[in-house]
């Protein structure tokens, strides 16, 4: 064994170093998910930057890595938020981590949301359930650069109200959005008593929001079936096919198109995606179990 020094913490070939971050705060979001806010251990965040829509590989000592999209504002890369569903081997261990615990972070990886392409027109974000997490950095970036967009429209849906993340911040979001003239529409498939917003799948919000197709760039993120219907719906309304984007999820173990697990037809989702132009993969999304 030849030991290298601590500043070279490569745990995957050529995937970049694994930096160490310290969990600062854990916010429960939905029954299965929570947001883990972390800051870098001294010096480890140096040079780290990411774009909206990219993901990190999070490493738990001795357990392994898991691909998690970054759900915080790219303007603050020293303070990262990852919203994590506890549904797998690694995420079920992350569930038991507490503030002060260390995690390894390798990244960022993948292609981001093309925010600049929406500039000058309307940005419509369509998200279902925890699908809002990977698109939240795009929402925050667009709000920070509010003057670059005409209308900012957020269409958020979930199966039930409790499956909608970031409710702790809802008041803040509503106030900020009102101040910035952001149009927010919420809906759930199965409303509960006390739910003040819409009922129905997220595509029912398209007419309600009076989306103007010709000026629209759309970012869609949610379960695959929801993205298929939203993508088709947007195209049927007349949104130009080259301006509809979706974020795909597959088994991602390396982040650099090497391990082979995340293939979708000719694409490696980790490197060619996760954000794809919808029209480039629409046919693939129609094939079952591809």
């Amino acid at each position: 064994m030849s030991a290298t020094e601590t500043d070279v913490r490569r745990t995957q070939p050529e995937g970049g170093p694994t930096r160490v971050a310290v969990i600062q705060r854990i916010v429960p979001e939905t029954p299965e998910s929570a947001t883990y806010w972390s800051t870098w251990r001294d010096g480890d965040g140096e040079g780290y930057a990411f774009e909206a829509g990219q993901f990190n590989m999070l490493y738990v000592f001795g357990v392994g890595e898991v691909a998690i999209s970054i759900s915080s504002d790219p303007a603050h890369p020293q303070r990262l938020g990852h919203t994590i569903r506890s549904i797998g081997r690694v995420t079920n261990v992350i569930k038991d981590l507490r503030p002060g615990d260390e995690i390894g972070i390798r990244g960022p990886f993948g292609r981001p949301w093309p925010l600049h392409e929406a500039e000058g027109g309307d940005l419509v974000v369509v998200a279902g359930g925890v699908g809002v997490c990977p698109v939240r950095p795009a929402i925050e970036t667009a709000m920070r650069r509010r003057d670059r967009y005409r209308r900012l429209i957020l269409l958020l849906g979930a199966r039930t109200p409790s499956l909608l993340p970031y409710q702790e911040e809802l008041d803040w979001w509503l106030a900020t959005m009102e101040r910035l003239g952001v149009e927010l529409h919420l809906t759930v498939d199965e409303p509960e008593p006390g739910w003040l917003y819409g009922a129905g799948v997220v595509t029912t919000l398209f007419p309600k929001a009076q989306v103007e197709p010709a000026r629209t760039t759309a970012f869609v993120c949610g379960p695959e079936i929801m993205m298929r219907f939203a993508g088709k719906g947007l195209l049927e309304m007349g949104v130009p096919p080259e301006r509809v984007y979706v974020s795909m999820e597959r088994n991602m173990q390396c982040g650099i198109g090497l391990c082979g697990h995340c293939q979708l037809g000719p694409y490696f989702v980790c490197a060619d995606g996760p954000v794809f132009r919808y029209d480039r993969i629409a046919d693939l999304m129609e094939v079952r179990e591809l």
Partner: protein
Amino acid sequence: MLYLDRAGFGDLLRSLADAGYELIGPTVRDGAVVLEEIEGVEDLPTGVGEEQGPGAYRLTDRPGGRLFGWAHGPDAAKRFLFPPRELLATVRRNGTMRVERPEEERPFAFVGLRACDLHAIEVQDRVFMDLDPAYRSRRERAVFIGVNCAEPGSTCFCASMGTGPRCTTGFDLALTELEDGFALEVGTPRGEELLSAVESRQATQAEAAEVERILEAATARMGRELDTSDMPDLLYRNLEHPRWQEVAERCLACGNCTSVCPTCFCHDVVDGVSLDGEVATRTREWASCFSAEHSWAAGEVVRGSRAARYRQWLTHKFASWIDQYGTSGCVGCGRCITWCPVGIDVTEEIAAVRAADGEVVRAG
């Protein structure tokens, strides 16, 4: 073209071992020709032949004492350049995470690789060279001595894939086994250097003509054929073809085909931890798209059915590989046919899709 006699070939292998190379060559073990570390010529499969067929592999006695009178066993160079299990790193907790990388191994000298397997290495190069420094190091330090194939198996179709039986790429030296020695081609300056350690001479015209005759006969005896026209589109437009379901009823999803395939590169990174919790390891292991966990994402298995897994393997190998790496992922070695326990034959499956091009089944 040069000529090297049997004794000279022995000297060549000895000089490689003396120069510090780990000699990797064919040898008989457990009833098969496998690739292993060998000492020299005496370990090669002398007087051994093979019978191969779908789901069938048998060694035979082959009179005449040839060393390379067989096609190939289950192993390719992949097992050495991209090992089935490879320690990537050891991570120590003690306050800070510290990574230790395994030391570099001795360089390999591969002896007796077929043209299909030399091509397979170039296919894997496109996957690993830029992204995996350990692979690159092993690859760049290795020496490759190819042997032209005189005895293609009944499952072979390298002629269809344009990868054999003649060694055309990826070798330092390429041999053709003749009655009592070898015709020899030099592929690289390194090959030229290796020859300086042994006695060779110019091949005679008769010897050169014999090489051509052997290779023409091998091409003519190729066991199988595959029509590669209209790839990748043929498979892309037949993702809902009924043949996927049909083959799934025979396929056991055992993953033998991906293990013996000389180009399959999918892998997992597996983490372990010592009993005292202080040392964690990260190990890379071959993975197979025939397993359920291969496509596990967001709490579910994307490719739950065997039909979907077989489709993924075949369409990746013959179609999407072309988009990803600019080459087919298949070199026509036929190992997936030979080592499939139920004898599924890729050439037959692709021909069946082609024969009913455009047929669609709507899965219920």
